[in-house]
Structures are given as structure tokens and as C-alpha cells.
């Protein structure tokens, strides 16, 4: 195509220098945004989200390894006191030096303006709130009202802004930033309302690692997967982390040498029964269901077989194998599809078939199950359809009810549902990732959706989650996670189906060095800043 042709011509001239002349990515703002420019990292809609501002550290949800970024190191001086060492020699894009004071300024700004406190530093969301954030030399110290280890993954993700720009800006939520002062690897070269061109900063603190001269961001494909696939195939996109149905066939098959896809396991998609409703309140019933789900077929339909079936432990395996208590051999936690066993379990638990061949409650009352699913979320629909047909084979009277996502949300809040598909976090904050699904504190209320939509409640689990707040090292964390895994394996509060993906759909004709299944050095979806420093020019053919 036209655009690709031009690009090739340019590439010829600069490829020799080992640099990548240009990469094409999809836009990070809505198309309708037009020339409503706003580079403010606190804004709801940002012209660009990824490439200008940087956080203190980056943590991959895949392996929970912490990569130092604007901070070089951190230490928990106590479970309620965290100290970062700030990187020296970093320059803001206007040439002025970046200091610890900017860091403290940023965090204190979020204190002053709660609407921008996305990391929840100053409230009780992920742990007790902070008392103060102060800078001293190259150190920035966080003091919390209590043990706050669970806040760490959120806290380090805060994008750091300069005091110079935001000091005079007033309410940062209402501030429109047109000339951003940032630390990131790129700065704005041009924006015409549609196409954003970013150019490499030679004075970036790790400029030697950034080989991409120019980033061109254009087009928003969130509800237009076909277009994205076509653009990718045409070489007009180099990387895409949105959804493309059946990427192997729609994209990779077109040119397997250059076209690649990697779906990294990012979380767990689970069937969430409402434990307050019969017969789901019965753990035996849930156990039977866990054996009666054809997870393999569900992943074939929902993710075109790209994702693996999930372990009942709730942990994404094999990435988090090391978190698994030793009593569970890794491969034993994936419950195989076994209808006979499921039937056996149901029979044993007293859910006998009535004269019409449909199972009844032990007390003889009929069972009628409605599976609520978000209409239009085709992967969810596919899973629901498959699992429903599996459960029907168990003799259960079950129907799928497809409804608007908002209506599903409403049911989550009201608890007025029977079965649902839900997402179970698998981040590095086990207390609020995995824990959110089983913690009593996370049972949704009328106005807020929280993670524990099944309304599972277990004091041992709650206690373990509480303990994680002061678990600042891995061993301590593992011990508490073990309690959660136990609950998952024995109580079946939710029934994992498959791992939800972090997507990377990319081409290797311009750049190589993307994170892959073999070299999962970064979460492709969450850590572009990491992979951009790994990319190198494709060897010329």
C-alpha cells in the first residue's frame, strides 16, 4: 500500500545506522478527540499515554520482577515506610534536570487533588493511606499509616510530572497540557489531530537503548478489529495490543515470517457462581461443576486456542509456579474435563435427576440456572455458550442470558444473579489481584463493583490478605498466597477457565526484539517503555 511503500524507501537510507526510522502504532486517544490536544498524564483522554511521562519503576505482572526506572532502588525501612533512590542525570525534555523534588511534588500533587490520585496513595484503597511523601537529596520517602506493602505495585506506576509545568498549572485535572515537559524517550514532533508523530530524544537518560527514531500513532481500532487486522497485514501498523479475532489466521498466517502474535497470560477468567444462592452455596455442587467444564473447548472458542486452560489454584501457571504451595504439584491443579466424575459428584451430593431427566436440589426443589453474560463480548459469550452446553450434559436446567454490560455490572452490585464470568486479577499485589476475588472486604456493595462478586467469605483468607500488607519480602508473600490457593482448591469460590491475555500482535520487518513467549521480559501490553528499549532494527534482507 501507499504508506508502506513510502516507509520502505525511508528505511533504506537509515537502516545502515542500526536505527529504526519509524514505527507505526495505533493511536492512544479516541479518534473523536481530534485536535483537542492534551498531553496531561492526569487527563481522562490523553493524546498520548505511554511515551512521554515515566514512572518510578516498572513491574511486570508476568513475573513480578521490578525494573528500576526513574528510581534506581527502593527499600522498605519498615512495613509502613518506603524509600526510593532517585536516578541522577535524567533531564526533562526542556533540558532542566529531574530531581527527587519533582517526585515528591508529583505525589503531593495527588494528595492535594484527590481526583488524580489514580494510585490510591492518599486513600485506603490498596492499603492504609500515606501520611507523607518527602524528598531529601536523591531519596524520596513514603510514610504510611500502617503496613502498606500491598500499595507498592500501584504506587510505583505513578507517572512523574515536573514541578515546573504543574506547579503553576492549578487543578491538574482541569489543566490542558499542550507543551508537556516530560522525561520519556520521545517528544512530540507534530500532531495534526489525527496523526501524532513522536521523535526520539537524544538526551533521554537511556538514549543509547532507544533505536526508534520516530513513532507514528494513528487510528483507533478498539471497536474495529477488522480494520486493525487489515492495517497490520498491510504493514501500516507494527504493533497492536488490542483485540483481533483469531490473529493466527487473520494475521500471522498471511506471512508467518514477519507476522507474530504473543498472548501472555495476564489474569484468570473464571466462572463466578453466586455463593448466596442455592445450589451454588454448596461446595460439593461447585466442585462438580469444576469437573464438568470443558475448558479446553472454551479456550478454543474464546481465544482461538491461544490461551491455556487455567489452574484451579487461581495462579497463572507456569509463570507463578514458584508461588504454588509445594503440596500442589503444578500440573495437578488444572482440573481436567470429566463429565463422568462431575455426574458422580452430583449424584453423591444428592442432586438427583427428576423424572424429566433434570437434576433437582437434594430437598427436591427444582434447579433453574441463568448464566448472565455481557452481550457483545464475544469471547465471554463463547465461553458461556460452551460451559452452558457442558452443564446441560450434566442434567442441569441452564440458560444463557446475554445482557448489556452495564446490566451485568448492575447484577454484580446487587448480587442478583446466579452464574457469571468474571476476571480474577493475577498481578503482583496478590491481596488485591487474586485476593480481591475471595476477600470479604471485596464483596461489592450497591454502588461499587468490587472483585468478590460471588460473595465468598472466609476468615482465614481475610487474615492472610491482611498479613500481606506487611509482607515486604517474597517468602512471606508466598506463605500468605498459599492460604488463598488452599481456599481456591478446596472451596471452589470461583472456577477458573482460562488465562486472560496481554496481547502483542506485531511485525518484525522494521524492528525486532519484541517480548515473546520465549523471552517474556516485559508485559507487552503494560510495559511498552520496557520493550521500546529492547527493539533493534530488523536485519536487512
Amino acid at each position, binding site marked *: 500500500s501507499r504508506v508502506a511503500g513510502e516507509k520502505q524507501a525511508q528505511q533504506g537510507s537509515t537502516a545502515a545506522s542500526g536505527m529504526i526510522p519509524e514505527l507505526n502504532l495505533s493511536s492512544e486517544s479516541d479518534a473523536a478527540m481530534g485536535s483537542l490536544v492534551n498531553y496531561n498524564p492526569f487527563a481522562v483522554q490523553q493524546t498520548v499515554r505511554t511515551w512521554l511521562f515515566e514512572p518510578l519503576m516498572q513491574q511486570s505482572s508476568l513475573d513480578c520482577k521490578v525494573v528500576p526506572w526513574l528510581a534506581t532502588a527502593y527499600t522498605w525501612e519498615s512495613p509502613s515506610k518506603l524509600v526510593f533512590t532517585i536516578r541522577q542525570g535524567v533531564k526533562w525534555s526542556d533540558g532542566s534536570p529531574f530531581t527527587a523534588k519533582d517526585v515528591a511534588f508529583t505525589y503531593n500533587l495527588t494528595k492535594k487533588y484527590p481526583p*488524580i490520585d489514580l494510585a490510591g496513595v492518599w486513600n485506603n484503597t490498596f492499603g492504609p493511606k500515606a501520611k507523607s511523601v518527602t524528598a531529601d537529596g536523591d531519596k524520596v520517602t513514603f510514610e504510611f499509616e500502617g503496613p502498606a506493602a500491598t500499595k507498592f505495585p500501584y504506587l510505583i506506576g505513578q507517572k512523574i510530572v515536573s514541578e515546573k509545568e504543574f506547579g503553576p498549572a492549578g487543578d491538574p485535572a482541569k489543566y490542558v497540557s499542550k507543551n508537556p515537559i516530560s522525561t520519556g524517550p520521545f517528544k512530540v514532533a507534530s500532531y495534526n489531530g489525527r496523526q501524532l508523530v513522536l521523535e526520539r530524544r537524544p538526551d533521554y537518560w537511556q538514549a543509547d537503548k532507544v533505536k526508534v527514531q520516530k513513532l507514528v500513532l494513528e487510528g483507533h481500532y478498539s471497536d474495529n478489529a477488522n480494520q486493525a487486522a487489515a492495517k497490520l497485514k498491510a504493514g501500516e501498523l507494527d504493533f497492536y495490543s488490542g483485540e483481533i479475532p483469531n490473529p493466527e489466521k487473520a494475521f500471522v498466517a498471511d506471512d508467518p515470517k514477519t507476522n507474530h502474535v504473543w498472548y501472555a497470560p495476564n489474569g484468570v477468567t473464571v466462572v463466578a457462581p453466586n455463593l448466596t444462592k442455592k445450589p451454588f452455596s454448596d461446595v460439593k455442587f461447585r466442585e462438580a461443576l469444576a469437573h464438568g467444564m470443558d475448558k479446553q473447548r472454551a479456550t478454543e472458542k474464546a481465544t482461538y486456542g491461544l490461551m491455556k486452560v487455567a489452574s484451579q489454584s487461581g495462579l497463572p501457571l507456569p509463570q507463578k509456579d514458584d508461588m504454588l504451595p509445594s503440596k500442589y504439584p503444578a500440573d495437578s491443579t488444572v482440573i481436567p474435563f470429566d463429565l463422568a466424575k462431575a455426574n458422580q459428584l452430583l449424584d453423591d451430593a444428592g442432586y438427583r435427576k427428576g423424572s424429566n431427566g433434570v437434576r433437582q436440589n437434594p430437598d427436591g426443589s427444582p434447579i433453574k440456572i441463568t448464566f448472565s453474560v455481557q452481550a457483545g463480548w464475544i469471547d465471554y459469550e463463547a465461553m458461556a455458550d460452551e460451559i452452558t452446553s457442558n452443564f446441560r450434559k450434566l442434567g442441569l436446567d441452564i440458560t444463557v442470558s446475554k445482557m448489556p*454490560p*452495564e446490566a451485568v455490572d448492575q447484577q454484580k452490585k446487587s448480587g442478583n444473579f446466579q452464574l457469571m464470568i468474571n476476571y480474577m486479577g493475577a498481578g503482583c499485589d496478590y491481596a488485591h489481584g487474586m485476593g480481591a476475588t475471595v476477600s470479604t472486604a471485596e464483596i461489592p456493595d450497591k454502588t461499587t463493583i468490587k472483585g468478590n462478586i460471588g460473595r465468598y467469605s472466609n476468615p482465614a483468607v481475610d487474615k492472610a490478605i491482611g498479613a500481606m500488607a506487611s509482607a515486604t519480602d517474597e517468602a512471606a508473600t508466598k506463605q500468605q498466597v498459599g492460604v488463598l490457593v488452599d481456599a481456591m482448591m478446596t472451596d471452589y469460590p470461583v472456577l477458573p477457565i482460562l488465562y486472560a491475555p496481554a496481547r502483542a500482535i506485531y511485525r518484525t520487518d522494521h524492528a525486532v526484539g519484541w517480548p515473546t513467549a520465549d523471552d517474556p521480559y516485559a508485559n507487552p501490553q503494560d510495559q511498552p517503555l520496557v520493550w521500546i528499549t529492547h527493539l533493534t532494527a530488523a536485519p536487512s534482507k
Partner: protein
Amino acid sequence: MRYFARKIGFFVLTLWAVVTLNFLIPRLQPGDPAELMVQNLAGKNAQLNRAQVEAMRDLLGAPSGSLFSQYWSYLGQLAHGDLGISYTYFPYTVAEVIGKAFWWTVILVGAVQLLSFAIGILLGAFAAWRRNSRFDTSVTVISTFVGTLQPFWIALLLIYGLGYGLGWFPTAGGYEASTPGFNGAFLYDALSHAFLPALTLMIVTPIGWILGMRNTMIMNLGEDYIRLARAKGLPDRMIALRYAARNALLPSVAGFALALGGILGGTILVESVFDYPGLGRLMGEAVGIKDYPLLQGLMLLTAVATLVANLIADLLYGVLDPRARRAAA
């Protein structure tokens, strides 16, 4: 005078009803905008970050007070011409957001409507004129067939056929590399981007005009003044256009004014498929993300446009049909 007072009274009353509905409808929809927006930013397969939801709620300033007091302040705002601040594009105001999208839609759909009206009228007139000829049959059959295709389906066809297959036209967006402004490069850029969406709409819109025109024209062809025109030995073209078509045009013109009013609401699907930066897409998004202020603004815009078009249709009819001048004016 009473007549105009009445007309204006009705206009205001309808406007009020619409404003009230505009206020109520979004509020009646289930779903929490803050949650939806965070979910939207994170992707559906992600856990809701509750801190973010809280922050978002603070940011948007959750509506407070009773429904009634909200309604009052909404009316007050409107009276000052203030449409509020968009949730999605915070801190940009609704007016600014709509302003960006406005001309894209108006120019694209306006041009399409004009063109398909002209084409539809001409084809319809000639089909009626040569009723039951092969031309008539093919025009009615073909236009009916393509006119009943779903626009979305046509769009797919075009994107893959002319867009990716042949590579003739860009398939997404309103423009690409050029800087908006009044210059050749940009116009070329914008036109080539507008081509496929325009074509999609062009395929489905003329049918109504064709059939409508054909219908009224056939009725009119039986009238005595057409017979007289024939007896006058005027060239067929003149009879067809000046006599038959001129008269048959009247109902269509009134319909056209209405269609123009509807421009602002009618292209959600096509604009979304083509990622076109217009009002339809904006409306689609606003509905999806529950951006109440934006949604209200768009609905108000559509409503006012339609109402005004309605009024113009009335007046236009008076101008075009001298008979109506005294009856209706």
C-alpha cells in the same frame, strides 16, 4: 400574528419536551459512568482499579442533589448556552468536543444527502417518465436492492474491496498526514478519506428519493396539465422536468429538509466503521461510555436541528408550492 405566535409556541413546547427527555433518558440508563470509563481505559478483560474509579468519580463530579434540582440547574445551564463539560474529554467542554466533530459530519453527510437527493430525484423522475421501460425496471429493482442492504455490510465490502483489496482509498479516519487547513494537500487527504463512507451512504440513501419521486411523479403524469404540455408539443425533457418533476418534487423537498435535520443523528454505524471523526461516532461513543453531558449535548443538537428543519420544511413548502402559500402560510 397569532399564527406565528402559535408556531413559535409549539416550537418552544417541543423543545422543552426534548430538553426534558434529554435530561431524563441518560439518567435512566443503568451503569456508572466512572466505572465504565475506567473499564474502557483498562480494557474489558481487566480488573477495575477501584482507586481509579473513585478518582474518576471525584473528577466527573457525580451528580448531586435531587433529580429535580439537577434538572433545574441543567435548565439554567442551557439557558446560558452552556452544554457542560464532557466526561470523556475532560476538561474540554461539550461545545468544544462537538465543535471538532461537527463539520466532518455536516460536510460528509450533507454532501451525500444533497448528492443522493439530486440523483434520486433525477432517477425517480426518469423512471416514472419511462414507466415500465427497461430503464424504469432496472432503476427500481437495482436501487431497491442496494438500498435495502445494511450500510454496515456495504461498508465492510467497500473497506475490503476498494480499501484493502485494490488499495484505492484509505479506510479509516477523516484525514491522515496533512495538517487541517484550507490547502490542497489537506483537501485531497480529507476527500480521499471521505470517499468510502460517502460511497456507503450514497448506496443506501437515494432509494427513498427514487421511489418517492417515482411515485408522486406517476401520480402527476395523469394530470391534465401534463396532457396539455404534451399537446403543446414541448420536448419530452421539458415536460418531464419542468412540468411533471417540478410538481412531483414538492413532497420530496419537504422530506429533504427533514433529512438534512436528521444528518446529525443518522450515521453512527457508518462513521464508527470508518473511524470517521464525526458526530455519529461521537454519539456512539457517548452512548457507550455514558458521557451524559456529551450525550445530552448531541441529542440537543440533533433535536434542535430536526426541529428547525421541520420549521424550514414548512416554510419551504410555502415557497415552492404557490398554492400552499395562502393555505399554509
